[in-house]
């Protein structure tokens, strides 16, 4: 694994893109985390206070566990995951091979819209962070 340095302007740009694509569309919490469970960027206004450290660790573990399941059935990994709740749902998507974008949104936001926006956002962010070049596989 190589070191990744994200400078202030790059992170500000990522925050701006996340706000425009997801938060303005009604997604109330967006987290960008790495695969070790560290939070790199947080956007939006969470409706409830929850333990972000635990959440990020579990999200990274969840993504890792499903990647292992994918390999067992002959897939490389699953590039997105979705958990549907009664009020809130969670959408996970890979950004390059090193980061995960997590969107938490209520039932007033359409899943199709989130998927569409996230697909474009993750492509652009991978390029912005240079993750497409590092891993060459995105």
């Amino acid at each position, binding site marked *: *694994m*190589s*070191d*990744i*340095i*994200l*400078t*202030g*302007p790059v*992170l*500000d740009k990522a925050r701006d893109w996340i706000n425009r694509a997801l938060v303005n569309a009604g997604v109330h919490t967006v987290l960008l985390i*790495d*695969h*070790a*469970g*560290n939070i*790199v960027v947080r956007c939006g206004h969470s409706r409830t206070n929850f*333990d972000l*450290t*635990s959440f990020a*660790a*579990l999200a*990274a*573990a969840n993504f*890792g*566990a499903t990647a*292992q399941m994918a390999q067992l059935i002959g897939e490389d990994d699953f590039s997105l995951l979705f958990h549907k709740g009664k009020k809130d749902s969670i959408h996970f998507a890979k950004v390059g091979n*090193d980061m995960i974008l997590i969107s938490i949104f209520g039932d007033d936001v359409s899943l199709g819209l989130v998927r569409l926006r996230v697909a474009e956002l993750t492509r652009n962010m991978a390029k912005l962070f240079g993750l497409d070049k590092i891993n060459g596989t995105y």
Partner: protein
Amino acid sequence: MALIDLSNREVHCKIVYYGPGRCGKTTNLMYIYNAMNSAARGKMLTIETKGDRTLFFDLLPLNLGKIKGFDIKIQLYTVPGQTIYHATRKLVLKGVDGIVFVADSLRVRRAKNIESLEDLKRNLKEYNLDIKSLPLVMQYNKRDLGKIGIPLLDTAELESDLNRELRVPSFCASATKGYGVFETLKAISKMTVRYVATKHLAGNQKSKKMGGPTRERRQRQRLS
């Protein structure tokens, strides 16, 4: 893979408690959780367990205070020890900055300790990490059981089995009684923070002097 957040002046390190099944990794974390001031620790996260075995991992976030203006935050993880949970163990090791190898002092667990250490070396290698270059501390747990007549390995045997080549700091402990738990934590925290600072922040200071990227208004540096 420490996360160094220069805008908030925080350093996040990941320390993993590794070892064979039922050696006392979760008990170490529970003792630390119960003994520490609530201001210095976060919530302890334990993923659903079957009986008293860890199925995925436990997580305990701690704040160690400030060093040279940086808030030092460490996250203690445990792995499931049982052999069948190989994939999960490897997953938890992702991004590790420091390791505590908890060995079971029971004589009957001798082979399991050696097997677990070999498993650790293999898993680290798969992440291109060398056990000899990472901060590592050995803890010989369950030392109190000798007093009630249970056959234990003596520390010389444990050293010879597990620490002959590595020659890392080792501590006798009883995680249920609490002795040796904080000595282990103190040692691995010190080693890990020093490792992260030497590896990453020293280079950063150089770039600051050179007018490098730290001139940015806000910068977050993620290092692996």
